[in-house]
């Protein structure tokens, strides 16, 4: 499943698109502690967080995440959007909580395999 599909299905607002939203999502990780995400997330994950500071872009780029979704309608900082564009990391915003968004994405990713 690619990012574009998830954006449409879940009504996400795209704040930085990278070169395209066709990047494939292989899994997901939810967390707000950067060293936890650094250690435990996987390449190709969509990262669900409520952190908005630009440091999230370096983490997503180092871990080769498919993209970042910020929850609870929190907006990324201006620096975050600029850096994400440079590093080619899609950043989206959802009005759902981390719990609800994680559940929905988990189900969407599961469906594709069935």
């Amino acid at each position: 499943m690619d990012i574009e599909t998830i954006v449409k299905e879940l009504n996400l607002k795209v704040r930085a698109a990278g070169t395209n939203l066709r990047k494939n999502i292989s899994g997901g990780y939810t967390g707000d502690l950067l060293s936890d995400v650094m250690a435990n997330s996987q390449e190709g994950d969509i990262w669900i967080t409520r952190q908005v500071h630009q440091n999230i872009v370096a983490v997503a780029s180092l871990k080769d995440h498919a993209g970042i979704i910020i929850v609870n309608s929190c907006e990324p900082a201006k620096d975050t959007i600029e850096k994400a564009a440079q590093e080619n990391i899609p950043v989206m915003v959802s009005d759902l909580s981390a719990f609800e968004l994680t559940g929905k994405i988990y189900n969407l990713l599961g469906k594709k395999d069935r």
Partner: protein
Amino acid sequence: MHPVDITEKNNYQRSFYVEGGNFTYAGIVSTSIKSILKKMDLPVDLVRKSAIVSYESEINIVSYAKKGVIKLTIDSRTIQIEAIDEGPGIPDIELAMQAGYSTADQRIREMGFGAGMGLSNIKRYADVFDLTSEVGKGTYLKMIINRI
């Protein structure tokens, strides 16, 4: 960044300056290190481990030290990353190594750091982990990822 030649992958050394307290550029050194290793076409699992350990050590310098240097040395057997800083040092290394122990202040925590997991992560992903520190002077952390 200067171009990397793939033939350098058995003999490469480079030092990066890290400024304490400046979170605007935090992560830039580990991002450079990852991109150098990728250009050298080193195995992905080694690139991943190197990215994690260099990131955590870079963030610790930015969070706690005045300034520091991260040295990347690659030879045919190892990827060695050294994080050397001038700063307060670590009074009790055993305590600092405990998962969950952190002295990070509010500003650092608000950005998502300060879980007290950085050093444990480095220990988990590096094949050699060697941490020494002198209070009032600084900290020296040597990390080695084996290539063979």
